[in-house]
């Protein structure tokens, strides 16, 4: 297939969750004949099982379409899919770097959301050509004119050419394709220059090794070529070059401007970093492409195998997951309660949950996750600053001069009817009001300074539920500020359990302590002895609950016919125990380690 560089269009789709991005992508595949209707599975681009279940896109995909425009010219379109959740802003910036244009998809009844806005700004910074698409105009509640006006007011984009579309019915999809071809510039770069290709993603194939996804900026990459990774210096021979259509299809080469994948027997995950530049080993480029800035994980938690023997498997699994998820960081840590494990950094809570689920489903590991924490800065009395990623590592209270915690500036867009409940929520989460702006007669943008620790956990869910799903959120780091924080320890059966320590604001400590031990009492199963559960600040116990001892638990009757059945019952009981961690004499279920997250909602 030979399509000249000036007929290539690389673009991504920016959209809020549920605004119809995946459906639109499906429609584009269908209309260009990349997939026939019969081949279409619902929402082809979301391939990860988890993504389908949660209805969100986590990992990017890059798909090539061939489109014949109205004048009969053939174009090669590469869609680079982007995630829509606030946790994954970093992934968005990666896909933007591989594109020249973006479709801005906005729901015709909902309008722009905070996260979309942030992504559009990011796209504008990358000088991408933006094509506004007003989607779901088939719905009775659609107000395309209001939404157009909002886009003009808030983003400053000209919407006179905005496409009115319905990905569901297919209306306007042809027009979108026409605009992509007309408005988005072809990629620059010279096919004859030394090879420079940006690795924007990768996955691991157990037969072929690491498969990097590339956007070729200059030069050409083909089978048999010797390549070098410019950051790591590792060299490989290309064994396969291909594109996603959306199934992988082997091609001869990838030229400047094209998007695809290669296989090069890359066995070591660390040799192939997302953001690195691939060049020709025999004719290397002078300078690598500007890479990605390293992401800063916002949330940290401990990951421990339930069975200590699985430690190596857990490490291998994390190695593999981090391969196409540069935002996942981890280092070994040891807990008195949980043994050997890893302290892992994530972009947010959703990201954390997804990694946890993938470890369990894809790698079949039983893991215990400790409650997430942000990074605190503890200033000791001798003037030193200690970065605390793990609450149990907080210095002694007597040695602390003061503690600082990370703050963010949060932007919340919400219909004005819900402003009251959003303000209430922000106050409860120790927020400081900064600003309020009217985006239209009905919608308001609120700005708050909030401690990161208050929003990374369940703020988003709370925000959604207190606004019936209408609010949207975006935030950026503002730096560290002093707060009156204390470390709260949890003692189970008299022993402090390091994995359960948490850092909390002093004003909330008593309330949280009480709620936490109460929750723990419900979660820890009864044993044959009594188990006190206490919350403590320093040496002071602030709350206590008791798990009553189990006094009688035995099958009264067991005869011949019962054996199989009773054994099955016992096996079921044992299965439940697998998810528990033996800490001292006490078996603690996974949920208990996360209890700290849910205490705020229960009251």
């Amino acid at each position, binding site marked *: 297939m030979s399509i000249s560089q000036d007929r290539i269009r690389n673009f991504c789709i920016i959209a809020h969750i549920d605004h119809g991005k995946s459906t639109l992508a499906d429609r584009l595949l269908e209309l260009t004949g990349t997939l026939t209707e019969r081949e279409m599975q619902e929402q082809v681009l979301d391939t990860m099982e988890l993504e389908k279940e949660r209805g969100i896109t986590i990992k990017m995909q890059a798909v090539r379409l061939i489109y014949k425009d109205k004048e009969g010219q053939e174009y090669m379109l590469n869609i680079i899919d982007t995630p829509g959740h606030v946790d994954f802003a970093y992934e968005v910036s990666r896909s933007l770097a591989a594109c020249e244009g973006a479709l801005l998809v906005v729901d015709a009844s909902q309008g722009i959301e905070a996260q979309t806005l942030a992504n559009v700004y990011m796209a504008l910074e990358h000088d991408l050509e933006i094509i506004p698409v007003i989607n779901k105009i088939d719905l009775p509640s659609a107000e395309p004119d209001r939404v157009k006006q909002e886009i003009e007011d808030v983003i400053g984009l000209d919407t006179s050419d905005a496409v009115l579309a319905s990905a569901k019915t297919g209306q306007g999809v042809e027009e979108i394709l026409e605009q992509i071809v007309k408005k988005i510039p072809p990629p620059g770069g010279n096919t004859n220059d030394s090879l420079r290709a940006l690795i924007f993603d990768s996955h691991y194939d157990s037969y072929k090794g690491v498969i990097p996804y590339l956007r070729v900026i200059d030069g050409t990459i083909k089978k048999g070529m010797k390549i070098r990774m410019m950051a790591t210096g590792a060299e490989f021979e290309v064994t396969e070059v291909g594109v996603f259509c959306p199934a992988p299809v082997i091609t001869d080469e990838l030229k400047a401007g094209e998007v695809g994948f290669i296989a090069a027997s890359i066995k070591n995950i660390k040799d192939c970093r997302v953001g690195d530049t691939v060049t020709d080993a025999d004719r290397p480029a002078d300078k690598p492409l500007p890479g990605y800035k390293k992401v800063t994980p916002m949330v940290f938690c401990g990951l421990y195998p339930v069975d200590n023997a699985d430690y190596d498997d857990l490490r291998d699994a994390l190695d593999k997951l981090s391969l196409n998820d540069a935002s996942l960081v981890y280092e070994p840590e040891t807990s008195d309660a949980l043994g050997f494990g890893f302290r892992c950094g994530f972009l947010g809570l959703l990201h954390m949950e997804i990694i946890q689920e993938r470890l369990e489903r894809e790698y079949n590991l039983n893991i215990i996750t400790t409650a997430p924490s942000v990074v605190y800065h503890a200033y000791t009395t001798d003037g030193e600053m200690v970065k605390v990623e793990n609450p149990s590592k907080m210095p002694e209270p007597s040695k602390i001069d003061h503690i600082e915690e990370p703050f963010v500036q949060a932007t919340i867009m919400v219909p004005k009817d819900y402003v009251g409940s959003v303000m209430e929520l922000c106050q409860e989460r120790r927020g400081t009001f900064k600003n309020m702006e009217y985006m239209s007669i009905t919608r308001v943008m609120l700005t708050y300074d909030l401690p990161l620790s208050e929003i990374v956990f369940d703020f988003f869910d709370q925000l959604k539920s207190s606004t019936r799903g209408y609010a949207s959120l975006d935030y950026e780091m503002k730096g560290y500020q002093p707060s009156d924080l204390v470390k709260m320890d949890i003692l189970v059966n008299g022993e402090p359990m390091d994995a359960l320590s948490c850092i909390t604001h002093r004003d909330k400590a008593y309330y949280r302590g009480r709620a936490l031990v109460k929750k723990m009492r419900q979660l820890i199963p009864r044993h044959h002895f009594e188990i006190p559960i206490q919350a403590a600040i320093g040496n002071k116990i602030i709350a206590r609950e008791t798990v009553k001892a189990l006094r009688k638990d*035995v099958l009264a009757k067991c005869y011949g016919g019962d054996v199989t059945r009773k054994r099955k019952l*016992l096996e079921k*009981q044992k299965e439940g125990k697998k998810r528990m961690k033996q800490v001292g004499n006490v078996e603690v279920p996974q949920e208990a380690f996360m209890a700290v997250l849910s205490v705020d909602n229960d009251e």
Partner: protein
Amino acid sequence: MQIGLYIHVPFCLNKCRYCDFVSYNYNPDDARVYLEALEREMMYYSAYLANLGFKVNTVFIGGGTPTVLETGLLAKLLISARSYFCWSEETEVTMEANPGTINKHKLRTIRELGVNRLSIGIQACQEKLLQTLGRVHDYQLALEGIYAAREAGFKNLNVDLIFGIPGQSLNQWRESLYKIENLQPEHLACYSLQLEEGTPLWVAVESGELDPVSEEMELEMYNEVINFLTARGYQHYEISNFAKPGFRCRHNLGYWHNYYYLGLGPAAHSHMNMERWYNIKDIKKYAVQTMKGSLPVAERHTLTKRDVMVETILMGLRLTSGLDLAGFYKRFGQKVTDVWPREINKLINRGLLELTSTNLKLTEKGLRLGNQAFVEFV
């Protein structure tokens, strides 16, 4: 090799509210069909056992309520079983009986036809509790049953009692024990009520119509029965079973030693030669299949050596004497302490298990928390 024979009689006058065994309301026509099929099944298996060189040394006829059958049918059953499986005077032959289905004539007949142990389901001595359980008899009838059994010549009687019945007080439980002990049965089985899912009693408790007995109360009742009966010359030899010296139930000991047994009749289970199987539950299908000339087996599982070891320890720990270490080694060529070193250690540390020079057994505490120990071995 000696094996146990179990014969299931799947009929009752009326099903008790706590029961989840396979049992149908009695009618003579069904009983005749059942009996014909049962005899056919006996015929197949008598040849089968003879081939293997297995000999029946205990018989247990349970249900259901075997004594719901008319005397003539009962006699037929016993005569057939005896001729097919050639038992002797030495063989322990137990039959379950319920008050309200027995009289002197019937009991004398079965005694003369070889039944030498009678197990009477009395369960409670208070009318209110008998109603809660859905029993068809009152206490007076139960009492008469026991007298009739003695008169018919039974020298080995078991009485079943239940504690932990919704509404039952500790005093009522003491009263039952006192009354029954007065009658001097050779054997007592005292079960804590298990609410089986789907039974009417379970529904009543789930819906809040009846209050379940608290765990504390159940424990007290359990302690009570152990203290009461052991002080009066009964040996507490299994979690729920008590016997005068020399009167332990040999058939049930076979289960607890995880020996082989053959079960006949609908839904009956069997264990033999690394296999477990059970029969079709539906009485009609059971009969059709058997009369067609095939075995009425519903499902059959092959056991691994590990399975047999697990079942041996699960059952063995139910006995107060525990699992015989030498016997285990002889049977499997492995020491039980080598098969589960970590688990045994942990349970000993927790005070649930005890290791003597000859046995591995539950401690006093372990007897009350058996499941906590059992679960470690599955």
